[in-house]
């Protein structure tokens, strides 16, 4: 039992973690503490990422009446750890998976929008993007072109999607949960 606590303390010193963050983590039940320790070690989390993990883990556990250890064992969170990926890609994959658990409806809406943009089939040089966390109305369409002919093609394709209602549906989707 003390091994994890000591390992966390040593890691905190190495990464210069704040005493508040460490105290919060150390206050968890032993299995929860150990489950997060495994992730922290594998992903070499620093202060900011660790605080996000602590927030999300506590919030998910409270919401679902579950334990941190139970949901951190889920395959979508474990898989990236053993994948042939660099540390940053692993971190991104684990964090994305944890965010989906923490924000299920927001993540689902983001995924639906991603698929809807893909279905517009506007080509690689027309980008459609949404405000961060979908807070706001502005949908940004970026067209990149090397010449007027290319620009005309891209604009024509966007116009077609406007006329057939696909872009209208995309805007409507922003409000649907």
């Amino acid at each position: 039992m003390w091994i994890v606590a000591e390992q966390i303390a040593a890691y905190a010193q190495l990464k210069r973690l704040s005493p508040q963050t460490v105290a919060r983590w150390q206050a968890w039940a032993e299995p929860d503490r150990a489950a997060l320790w495994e992730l922290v070690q594998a992903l070499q989390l620093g202060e900011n990422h660790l605080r996000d993990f602590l927030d999300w883990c506590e919030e998910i556990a409270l919401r679902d009446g579950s334990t941190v250890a139970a949901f951190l064992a889920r395959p979508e969170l474990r898989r990236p750890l053993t994948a042939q990926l660099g540390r940053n890609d692993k971190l991104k994959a684990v964090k994305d998976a944890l965010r989906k658990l923490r924000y299920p409806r927001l993540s689902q809406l983001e995924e639906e929008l991603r698929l809807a943009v893909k279905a517009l089939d506007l080509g690689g040089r027309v980008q459609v993007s949404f405000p961060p966390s979908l807070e706001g109305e502005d949908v940004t369409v970026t067209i990149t072109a090397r010449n007027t002919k290319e620009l005309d093609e891209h604009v024509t394709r966007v116009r077609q999607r406007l006329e057939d209602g696909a872009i209208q549906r995309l805007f409507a989707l922003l409000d649907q949960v």
Partner: protein
Amino acid sequence: MKRYQPEEILIERGEENTPVVRRTLDHLPDTPVRIVEPGWEREAPPRDGTDSFAAGKRRLLFTRQRSTFLEHCPAGTSGLVCCNYLVVSLISNCPMDCSYCFLQEYLANNPLLKVFTNVEDLMSEVAKAVDRQPWRQFRIGTGELSDSLALDPLLGFSGDLVPFFAARKNVLLEFKTKSDRIEELLKHDPKDRVVVSWSLTPPAIADTEEHGTASFAERLHAAQRVQAAGYKVGFHFDPLIEYPHWEEGYRDTITQVFSAVDPRRVAWVSLGSLRMTPALRAIARRRFPQTRLLSGEQILCDDGKWRTFQALRVKMYRTITAWLKEAAPQAPQYMCMETTPVWEKVFGHAPSCDKDVARMLTQPNLVAS
């Protein structure tokens, strides 16, 4: 609702014989009293213990307001639709302890329960302001830095304020409360110039997150009684909280409210999403580790506050405003601290300026459609 009992009463020298102090001491004859010098609280050592904010609520300090009383409501943040509301604070801090309360952050460094003794200065300030613009309709509330009525049985401020506001034609006074402390109000005639409004959440939330408040049933009973006594009533579904089965919770709450009160004599109903700064979230997490409020799908918005993400928030607003419209078609509805696009999505239009919202709320015939 539990009676407020301070551990200690502190009276600034020179304020011992003010009416509010005398009234309070009559009601609390056994509470230790200490006379302190003006400005004492600035030098007072911080209280020991892990929750100085909670401890501060049990120390009642009587002092003078040396600054102005009348202020613009701080919710009028740039980029958000404002309702042109004014606030006056005779009390700073609250005997209740809601897990989402902004006072936990706002008063973190000075967590006493302060009562200002110079109510006559407040009234003269208000009189000057509203008499200067007799054509304008003002709305002034006392519930910004404290519950408006929770301490009324001790302090009796409503006995000063109701007759003063009842005598003026161009101002509405709003008492905003989560209490059922209305006895003093019932002794006065509001002459249609006083609105008593209740902040409401479904009982499942009120019971777990609004510590030390009156229960939902108690609030409703109090609303019935003040309405019968001639007061207009209002309701604030603020903070609006997204939790599992929120639809049933809010539907049921609205049904019960408008079966209990006459919907035709409801001055206004407001809605406002739960919003918390990052610092407030950290405080709430520390003080109320079991709170479920932080587990909703909230994200950080442009004004630096966490809210339920927009699509879900708009869904909640649309659902609840439709139920309210059905239950109380004449009651004006508005939202607090929301953007113009969200107003457009919810009400189909946004006010062209903040005066529009104020006009709608002071001329009840102009009901939001």
